[in-house]
């Protein structure tokens, strides 16, 4: 399906040189990134999948936390824009010698870097770097705070599937409290006019989210037949020991997307997952690999969205 570009005569211009989260963006700015991403998607269909827009610029992937999709996606996105890409990870760096985040980042910047893509376990890490550094900062996930490019690629994928976002009912299911993906999705979806259902056990899905306009639901089955999109979050095994978390079996029975639940969904329900998936726990394999799954499309679109973001932050700088 082709994307309708939501352009008006007074198209707002992009002026930010950082992307720290979706909470601080306007709906116009979010739509502007999505429209730009639609153009970058075309680049990946060419025989020469490269444009010179960021030639001579340097992009650093600085990941203080593990990642496969996001890191690879940012790397490929930067390369398709002809930027030079440096990879930095905590393991094997001076971080293990005790260097602080700020010092490491300042040193990387001193080498003449244009964009730092940062992932860190602490919420607010990207914002702190943006205040300290002169180069552009793109947040690739900071603690449980935000993961804006994931939020954008989810928005893009939903818009591509349905041709709109406004008026859709979107369920986000799982460990909401600890999820930056859930937060970025919540901000983006509600700004663009979707109805957001946050679904999970009381310990992981507090009512506090209702003040941001979301509907908090603890009984997945009560809304399963109404929603247009189901975004299943990953069960974070690193947190499974905590008392907030029920047993895996119990969680899977109450909040997993099982075949039985899937049968009770809307006929054209769209299934999403930010990855990495725990097959058989939060989502059954047949559903994840089925025709209504957008999981791999999300990954494809992630590349276009990240190209758009890298391009926009460098052009505004």
């Amino acid at each position, binding site marked *: 399906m082709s994307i309708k570009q939501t352009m008006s005569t007074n*198209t707002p*211009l992009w002026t930010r040189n950082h992307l720290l989260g979706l909470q601080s963006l306007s709906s116009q700015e979010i739509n502007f990134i999505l429209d730009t991403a639609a153009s970058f998607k075309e680049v990946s269909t060419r025989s020469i999948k490269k444009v010179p827009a960021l030639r001579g610029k340097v992009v650093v992937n600085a990941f203080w936390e593990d990642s496969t999709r996001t890191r690879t996606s940012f790397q490929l996105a930067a390369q398709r824009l002809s930027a030079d890409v440096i990879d930095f990870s905590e393991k094997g760096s001076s971080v293990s010698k005790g260097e602080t985040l700020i010092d490491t980042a300042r040193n990387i910047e001193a080498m003449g870097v244009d964009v730092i893509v940062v992932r860190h376990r602490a919420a607010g890490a990207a914002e702190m770097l943006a205040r300290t550094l002169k180069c552009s900062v793109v947040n690739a996930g900071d603690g449980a705070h935000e993961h804006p490019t994931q939020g954008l690629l989810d928005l893009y994928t939903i818009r591509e599937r349905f041709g709109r976002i406004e008026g859709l009912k979107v369920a986000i299911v799982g460990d909401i409290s600890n999820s930056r993906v859930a937060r970025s999705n919540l901000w983006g979806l509600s700004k663009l006019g979707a109805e957001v259902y946050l679904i999970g056990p009381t310990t992981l899905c507090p009512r506090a989210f209702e003040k941001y306009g979301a509907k908090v639901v603890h009984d997945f089955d009560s809304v399963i037949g109404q929603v247009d999109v189901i975004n299943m979050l990953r069960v974070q095994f690193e947190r499974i020991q905590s008392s907030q978390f029920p047993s895996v079996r119990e969680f899977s029975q109450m909040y997993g997307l099982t075949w039985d639940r899937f049968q009770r969904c809307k006929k054209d329900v769209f299934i999403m997952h930010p990855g990495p998936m725990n097959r058989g726990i939060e989502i059954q394999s047949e559903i994840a690999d089925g025709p209504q799954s957008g999981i791999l499309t999300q990954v494809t679109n992630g590349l276009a969205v990240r190209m758009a973001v890298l391009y926009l932050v460098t052009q505004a700088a």
Partner: protein
Amino acid sequence: MFREYDQAQFKTIYDQWRERICADFSPHQPINIIGIRSRGQTLAQRLMQSMTAHGFKHIGQGVLDITLYRDDLSEIGPRPLVRPSEINLQLDGVPVLLVDDVLFTGRSVRAGLDALTDFGRPSVIKLAVLVDRGGRELPIQADYVGLTLRDVPNSHRVNVLLTENDGRDAITVDPRP
């Protein structure tokens, strides 16, 4: 206003331009007409229609968005929306007619040529512009020019207005805002 060519003058300029282009290509050979967004795209569409009417049978049509290929990206302020290029054509070995509205510094055309080479290797690329206003900063010349303006100061803008985009056909020369 510095100068204006009205609808009737526009038509004379456009028709002569089109005839010269039609005469230079064989109706029986394939040709790709590619417009540079956004006025070049409209002109390319018009050319394609009238060439089809003149018996051309193998015309491919495409659109180039050259934003990502510009060398002055950092100088032109906040970014307008990047739009996709639409080149679903077999470029290799086929002549290309690259179409734009106004030729000035030549930088757009250079960006267009760079973009085109990423899509394939045409047998020849010819450049058609409706207005050549001089002021080149690169060694680039058009093969087909509708109107040559020799005395437009740098402080002025040459606008090609097209019914499809602007509601009327005209060429205007105005001081830059």
